[in-house]
């Protein structure tokens, strides 16, 4: 194991869609399934799979409820999710710095 930033990346978070979900949930505090599906341009099934991975890892919580007669699913970032997102962003920045500095 070396100190290369790539070694600090978390497989659960280091993925385009899952990083997107965490980013949106962090900025919005709480985000609805439909908003995530539209902004990430995913199918409902695909989004559900990624949410399942994040929920299993304890990075998000999923709450189902109703707004009037409409069923709605809300996704909220957990404390661990916030920390994982912060760690991923700083690792990405380090990685880019290394690449630009020719250290990769």
């Amino acid at each position, binding site marked *: *194991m070396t100190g290369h930033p790539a*070694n600090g*990346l978390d*497989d659960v978070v*280091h*993925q*385009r869609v899952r*990083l*997107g979900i965490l*980013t*949106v949930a962090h*900025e*919005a*505090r*709480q*985000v*609805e*399934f*439909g*908003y995530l599906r539209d*902004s*990430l341009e995913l199918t409902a099934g695909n989004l559900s799979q990624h949410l399942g991975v994040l929920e299993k890892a304890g990075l998000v919580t999923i709450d189902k409820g109703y*707004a009037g007669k409409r069923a*709605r699913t809300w996704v909220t970032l957990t404390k661990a999710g916030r920390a994982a997102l912060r760690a991923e*962003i700083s690792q*990405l*920045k380090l*990685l*880019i710095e290394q*690449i630009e500095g020719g250290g990769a």
Partner: protein
Amino acid sequence: MTTRAAGADENPRRLLADSRRLTRQVRAAQRATWFPLLVFSAVTFAAIPVYRLGRHTVTCRTVPQGRICTAYTTPGLVYWPIALVLAYVVIAGFYLRRARDRGIGTRVFPYAVAGIALAVVLFGAAFWAAHNPPDPGRFILGVRGATVLLNQLAIAGSAIGLALLVLALVERNGALVTVAVGYVAFALLPARDLGWVLAPVSPWFFLPRLLLGGALLLVAGLLFAAFQRPRRRGAA
């Protein structure tokens, strides 16, 4: 660490760029700057009949530099704290309803709490100012003329401007910072510098400040509405 295929989806530059784009997208969808501006404009215009129908108190004294007159309306002291608290309740309700409709959370609570706190401070400051007319020669805590500044800060315009600054920070909105700073500067401007002053003994002495302040907020609200409307449609 597992071995992973470094596909285009895991390119660090692309991941970071996507993350920043999504952050901007969420912030744009959360913003509804026009609404608080239009509410504050309405509250400012609605103060005109309250001021006009209320009892005026004019205090004039002679100082070495000339004559200083202070005019205030008693209902104004009651109107602003109540009107501002109601305005924040309406604004918070609007943001929450909008967030629910759009499917994204909102950061309106720090703004509403700061706004209500400012309204309470304003009530205390206005009460103090009513008993301490501006006096350029008077010292408070070693500061000469502090009563002049404190009297200016005690007016409702300062509370609205400071609350707009809080909103600008909550929304991370650079354009609103400019509007809020401009509005605070306008609110702190002495009446004689507004370019339209009525004599303190006139029953309409308050009109220039309320009309100009309300108009500034109205124009800013309409401009934000015009600029934020296409984004709202795009984000919906």
